[in-house]
């Protein structure tokens, strides 16, 4: 194949490279635009940004942090990301380990009972009514509890544990280690690769969630960043109110701050953490989707 290349093959190579580059630009350009806009002077930016920053400044970021809801919302986002992913990891992980214990009574029944949730669901309205009934409206736990035991992750972890050598666990049990000890000291460290994949997935999922907050949260102090941005986008009035409030209350919000600049900067604040961890995530998500594909 190497050496003699036909004309058609060369032409294909060149057009192939062009196509993939064009599609990559199509995919990445919006992010580039966002960063440029958020780093530009708001007034100059209204003339349009295409390829480069206009009037480089960090003022947008400084001003956005001063907006009333943003610090609180950022705290909610970070907390739900960390707490949510660790609760999912521990619950799904420990449950998956229990499901590998042959001695358990009703093991198959319990396993099927949980796996079935992948295929049946009550739907939006009944779920909402149940959550309301359980008092989870305006309650931080609604971000964390519903996803704690996830059938999909249970399958992934259980499959992984089953291919580990059993002798380690057995010898630990002979030494007198209980089931919790076995899991924590032996199984958990050994299943790091799959657990890392799951942590990455749940963290991104939690960070990106907003719909649950929208339907369950009426109080502003429990809304995550994503929902605040959604509201800024859907209610233009609210955003200009915020800017005016900021000016009136004496917080030094730049008068030049435009709604567009705020939106782009909040967008950047939400996206930058994902962009930062993205390179590390890559090796995990390919693995994750492959295990999922094989099992599913």
């Amino acid at each position: 194949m190497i050496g003699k290349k036909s004309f058609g093959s060369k032409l294909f190579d060149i057009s192939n490279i062009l196509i993939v580059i064009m599609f990559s630009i199509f995919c990445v350009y919006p992010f580039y635009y966002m960063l440029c806009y958020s780093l530009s002077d708001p007034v100059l930016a209204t003339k349009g940004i295409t390829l480069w920053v206009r009037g480089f400044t960090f003022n947008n970021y400084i001003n956005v942090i001063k907006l009333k809801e943003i610090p609180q919302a950022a705290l909610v986002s970070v907390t739900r990301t960390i707490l949510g992913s660790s609760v999912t990891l521990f619950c799904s992980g420990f449950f998956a380990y229990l499901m590998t214990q042959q001695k358990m009574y009703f093991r198959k029944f319990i396993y099927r009972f949980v796996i079935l949730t992948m295929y049946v669901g009550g739907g939006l309205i009944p779920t909402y009514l149940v959550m309301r009934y359980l008092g989870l409206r305006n309650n931080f736990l609604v971000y964390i509890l519903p996803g704690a035991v996830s059938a999909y992750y249970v399958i992934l972890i259980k499959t992984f544990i089953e291919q580990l050598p059993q002798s380690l666990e057995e010898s630990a049990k002979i030494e007198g280690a209980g089931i919790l000890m076995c899991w924590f000291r032996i199984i958990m460290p050994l299943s790091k690769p799959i657990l890392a994949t799951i942590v990455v997935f749940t963290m991104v999922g939690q960070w990106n969630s907003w719909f649950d907050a929208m339907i369950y949260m009426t109080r502003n102090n429990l809304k995550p960043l994503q929902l605040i941005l959604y509201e800024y986008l859907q209610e233009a009035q609210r955003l200009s109110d915020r800017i005016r409030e900021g000016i009136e209350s004496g917080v030094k919000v730049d008068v030049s701050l435009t709604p567009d600049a705020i939106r782009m900067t909040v967008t950047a604040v939400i996206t930058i953490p994902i962009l930062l961890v993205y390179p590390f995530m890559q090796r995990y998500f390919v693995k994750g989707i492959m295990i999922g594909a094989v099992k599913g």
Partner: protein
Amino acid sequence: MKIGLDSTLRKRKISIEGIKLTLLALPFVIFVFVFCYLPLFGWSFAFFDYKPGLSLSQAEYVGLKYFKYIFSYNKDMIRVLKNTLAMSFMSLATSVLPVIFAILLNELRNLRFKKFIQSFVTLPHFISWVIAYSLCFAIFSTNGMYNNLMQVLNITDKPNTVLSNSNYVWTFMTTLDIWKGLGWGTIIYLAAIAGIDAELYEAAIIDGAGRFRCIWHITVPNLMETYIVLLLLSVGNLLSIGLDKYLNFKNPLNASKIEALDLYIYRIGLMTHDYSFATAIGIAKSLVSIVLLFTVNKLARKVRGESII
């Protein structure tokens, strides 16, 4: 003798460890029951005239009233179904793009370049639809990059408002789906290509097959199976196309064209608080989805001799 008797006795005895394990699993089972199975009981709301603030026992039993209402001539329902099916079929039609893109990526000779491109095109998968909408909002606004470009290139003078144009909304949403999902979709096909036996290619080259023949006669047929399974599964999800993207991109000007089934349920249920009717639509949707899934599965068994679920 004694030892033998002892061990049979031990076998019959209920093992304490087994019970302990079951008890350990019990909290999780209760958890799953509350969050996943309890909502199923909420289906009963569809058979009552439930008003918010009342309890279910105070509500009047109306039987299949709401279900009849769905299937009777109902302008809203027809419009919403049309929107849903239109966008579903557009995404089915574009589902072949990840296959093509995977083949293109696989034909790149420089592996580092390939990895680079792959990480670029997968990126949009990891952002929420709120962010996606925010980016579109900025780029397509009247003084955004899109309209600037149009003016510079002298294509149009007056600003084009893509986001509030109901004529293009289906195409626009499908394009966005491609933007967000194409790179992610290729991963599975790239893995499938990596799994193809290299000897097949070697043998083909010895037999005189060129590059395109290798692609057409080896790569494509090997990807077909994966493609068909994924396609059939998405047919099962024809009606469940989600709501968060439509919720973001909806505005008064395009609302009538963008409202898909899930968004309609959301609006009826949580905006106008008609819980019973919304639940009834949800149930009908689930039933249709189940029927679709089983039909498709049967079809797959006939075609491939193997079921997909």
